[in-house]
């Protein structure tokens, strides 16, 4: 049994202890470096919350990409 003591979005006064099934799938995910605490946080959300979080993340990534392209284009033009 793997015990997760990481807590994203949980009350800070209490660490999160979630029993995670010790199955081949979890061991494989762990071996591949997948962030299991984050995965577990995701599972505990509702689909709506996941959709909302994804939309926010996508907006951030898109804005960062646009900024990078703008900067790259600008610095290229300056050369």
């Amino acid at each position, binding site marked *: 049994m793997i015990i997760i003591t990481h807590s994203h979005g949980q009350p800070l006064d209490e660490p999160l202890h979630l029993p*995670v*099934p010790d*199955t081949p*799938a*979890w061991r*494989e*995910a762990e071996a*591949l470096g*997948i*962030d*299991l605490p*984050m*995965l*577990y946080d*995701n*599972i505990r*959300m509702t*689909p*709506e919350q*996941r*959709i*909302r979080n*994804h*939309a926010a*993340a*996508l*907006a951030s*990534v*898109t*804005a960062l990409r*646009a900024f990078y392209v703008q900067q790259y284009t600008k610095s290229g033009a300056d050369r």
Partner: protein
Amino acid sequence: MSSNIPNLELIVERLVQHEVDFVIIGGYAAMIYGVSYITYDVDVCGPLDLGNLTRLHTAIADLHPHHRMTPNESPFVLSEGFERGLRNLYLKTDLGQLYFLGSLPDLGDCAFARDHSTLMKLPYGECRLLDIPTLIHAKQTVGRPKDLHVATELRAIFDATQPQ
């Protein structure tokens, strides 16, 4: 494009509100199950018949939809006989990219996708999501490194969400 920020949820909402027959597949479905992955498009599977295409067109007509894979990115218009021989639609809209597939590659048609889907309730209505085992299978079939990574996360999620 009126905004550079995609809003994939609004695309799904429009499809639901206009009663388009579809099942969410691909990375967007994986994200809804909890995979920590950012996807830039919505992949759905559904019948590409005239009725469904008409509903789809009505749902996104004001979003300047155009074909992403054509050389000149021609607008998505429903001309007579458009649906004949159509297998997939790769559309770019003001809200983001929508890939409408007529079947799941190497797995089955849209009826197969519907039979292997689960119903999800959202504030604006219900829509279908490819079930986790089939989504894992689909990702493994595609087999790119990022798909295999998503399949690994999905297997872990599937394990974690099974009754003990």
